[in-house]
């Protein structure tokens, strides 16, 4: 069977999945919406992912924005960030199996352009644990540019401004007849809508005469969710308010255009500094851009669009959906890779028509020098794949080993860069100081992943290391998880899907029963009738028909789910749950 090309945008707040159908990228439906909240609740036997997890209003057992912890040692209920991400990916596989009837075995997965090597490795590990072979890791703004470029069929130099939930990326690209050449990229991994929500909450606490630290961690998570809803609702209103429950009582959160403008000023300023620097690195001035492409949910804010127009003075493109573009671009590129793989005739039409991507290294890579400085070996914005070598020598007589500390970042001091790994080259033959010739070779492959080799020229001692996260999952943990994953391949596969359908439908029915009375009369009547139907079909073991009805129910409830979640978050129900 020909493999279907899949692209996965594993976002901080929202994940989006796209697959190719007749050469057109389609968006996978979750609860009647195009996005899956990247939220996982662990209070049940199996992880609950997405809108249902938010609906549970159970911050004590729920992981939000796990992407921010990728590549770190953080643990959530005993799980690493890699494992939590794997649970999101497993859920995605599950939904594809249910809705489309096939298995996601390979995919292009996107990462923020500014992700470090450790964060990229962690993303690959998450995919491996979920039994997904990563065709390619591509950078989010680049993926968006692919979707944009193929949609517009245009050539020129464009910038992508990607303001998402957790990260900000800015990339400058040249589009030339299907080749997407990244000229430079810049960004900040800790600049996103999440931080804005936090500020909105803090602003309200201050306005109420409270300290910003009065809320516990978990209370704060719920408060930020309410702030997020306010921010997203503001566009049609001059001012919005919603209740937010603190343990000590209810606090009304208020957001007006003026307040948001005030809060956003600082964030926008930071994005402009990064954008300007990146344009300089690309050797392009804003007025020479052929356009600015907006990506990321935050760019839906009118006030952002206005400031961008003023700051860049270039044409702003709105015609691609800022939330879907990344996943679509990933699916398109997955398709291009698969087409070329199955079609080795370089002169064939399909081969030539597939887009080609030339991306860059986002952050410089180097080794720590003797005095704690950094010797940069591969500079940021170098096109990939790339390979560079450096020669070092011993500084003591008869020195037989040499230690290397690999770092990533732009700071001139090693301690201020991200530490990737340390390794020692041993077995250097004894000789006077300065005589040994140690070669260190850095290579970055097309996934943006670093490999390092080192050897002494006269002795031919070769050491090859691929960087593995110095924090996060240990090698042993990873190995055992991969073993389990491999053993689960059959359990995960279609053969088991009837049981899946039954279990999942029953779980959903329970959930729907709790909310069915909250939806409008007309929809409620249809939903109740369909729920009865679904029950009968399951009893009769007519699973294929059951899936169709279940999907329809998801669409029906999907229309109201966000509103139900919102009012639940700011309504009285929350108190009961939090008091528990």
């Amino acid at each position, binding site marked *: 069977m020909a493999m279907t090309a899949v692209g996965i945008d594993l976002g901080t707040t929202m994940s989006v999945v796209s697959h190719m159908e007749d050469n057109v990228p389609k968006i996978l439906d979750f609860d009647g919406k195009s996005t899956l909240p990247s939220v996982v609740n662990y209070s049940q036997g199996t992880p609950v992912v997405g809108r249902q997890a938010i609906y549970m209003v159970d911050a004590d057992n729920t992981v939000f924005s796990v992407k921010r912890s990728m590549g770190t040692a953080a643990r959530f209920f005993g799980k690493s960030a890699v494992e939590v991400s794997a649970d999101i990916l497993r859920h995605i596989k599950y939904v594809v199996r249910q809705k489309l009837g096939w298995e996601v075995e390979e995919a292009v997965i996107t990462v923020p352009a500014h992700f470090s090597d450790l964060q990229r490795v962690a993303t690959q590990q998450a995919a491996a644990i979920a039994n997904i072979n990563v065709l390619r890791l591509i950078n989010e703004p680049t993926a968006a540019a692919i979707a944009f470029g193929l949609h517009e069929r245009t050539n020129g130099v464009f910038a992508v401004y990607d303001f998402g939930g957790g990260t900000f990326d800015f990339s400058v690209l040249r589009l030339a007849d299907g080749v997407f050449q990244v000229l430079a990229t810049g960004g900040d991994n800790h600049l996103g809508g999440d931080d804005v929500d936090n500020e909105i909450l803090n602003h309200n606490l201050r306005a109420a005469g409270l300290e910003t630290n009065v809320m516990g961690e978990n209370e704060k998570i719920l408060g930020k969710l309410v702030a997020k809803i306010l921010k997203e609702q503001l566009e049609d209103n001059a001012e919005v308010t919603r209740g937010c429950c603190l343990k000590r009582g209810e606090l009304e959160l208020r957001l007006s255009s003026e307040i948001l403008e005030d809060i956003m000023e600082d964030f926008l300023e930071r994005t402009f500094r*990064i954008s300007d620097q990146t344009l300089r690195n690309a050797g392009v001035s804003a007025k020479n851009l052929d356009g600015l492409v907006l990506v990321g949910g935050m760019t839906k804010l009118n006030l952002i669009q206005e400031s961008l127009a003023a700051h860049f003075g270039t044409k702003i493109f709105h015609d691609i959906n800022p939330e879907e573009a990344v996943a679509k671009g990933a699916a398109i590129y997955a398709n291009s890779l698969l087409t070329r793989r199955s079609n080795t005739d370089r002169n064939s039409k399909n081969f030539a028509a597939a887009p080609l991507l030339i991306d860059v290294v986002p952050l410089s890579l180097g080794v720590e020098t003797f005095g704690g400085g950094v010797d940069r070996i591969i500079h940021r914005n170098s096109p990939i794949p790339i390979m560079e070598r450096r020669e070092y020598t011993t500084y003591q007589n008869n020195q037989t080993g040499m230690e290397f500390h690999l770092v990533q970042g732009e700071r001139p001091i090693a301690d201020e860069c991200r530490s990737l790994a340390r390794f020692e080259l041993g077995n250097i033959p004894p000789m006077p100081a300065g005589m040994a010739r140690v070669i260190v070779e850095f290579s970055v*492959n097309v996934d943006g992943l670093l490999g390092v080799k080192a050897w002494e020229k006269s002795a031919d001692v070769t050491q090859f290391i691929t960087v593995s996260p110095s924090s996060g999952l240990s090698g042993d943990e990873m190995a055992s998880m991969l073993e389990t994953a491999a053993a689960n391949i059959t359990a995960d596969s279609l053969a088991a899907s009837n049981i899946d359908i039954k279990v999942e439908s029953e779980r959903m029915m329970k959930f729907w029963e709790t909310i069915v009375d909250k939806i409008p009369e007309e929809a409620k009547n249809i939903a109740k009738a369909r729920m009865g139907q679904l029950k009968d079909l399951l009893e009769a073991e007519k699973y294929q028909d059951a899936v169709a009805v279940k999907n329809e129910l998801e669409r029906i409830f999907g229309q109201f789910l966000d509103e139900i979640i919102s009012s639940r978050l700011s309504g009285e129900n929350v108190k009961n749950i939090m008091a528990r």
Partner: protein
Amino acid sequence: MLLNTPMAMNYFEIFGIPASYNLDVSHLTEAYLQKQGRSHPDVGGGASDSEDSALLNVAYGTLLNPLKRAEYLLNLDGSDISATSSDDTAAKIFELREKWASLESRGERARFCGELRRRTSDLIDSLGKHEKNPEEFRKIFCELRYVDAFLEKVADGDDGGWY
């Protein structure tokens, strides 16, 4: 910065363009994209292809950047630019650093960086005008190198947010 792998062709020859500081950048890019379209791992795969693609990237990156291009040309000519000027460079960077440290406000620093960036682009232009004069070319190159190194090491590093 000569590439470390032995090879028959120099970077200019790879792209079929004359070995000159004054090159046509759009011409270079066109040749690069065309070559990459045949050797990128995504269009062919295979270990040797990948090395090929990496070499094209190193060669393109070197010729595209005026400072690296000048250095590469000086290397091709056999000028020893690393040893003779390094002490001088260190002293000059030290001077710039002192000046930098004496600036107090963010605005002053930004202005200083702006000045240096303008100086950089002037130097890049004058390299082009002095290609035929090896002595002058080398002198301009050395100044450009330390200003550039300073901007990269100190000014950009100080910019924050660049983890």
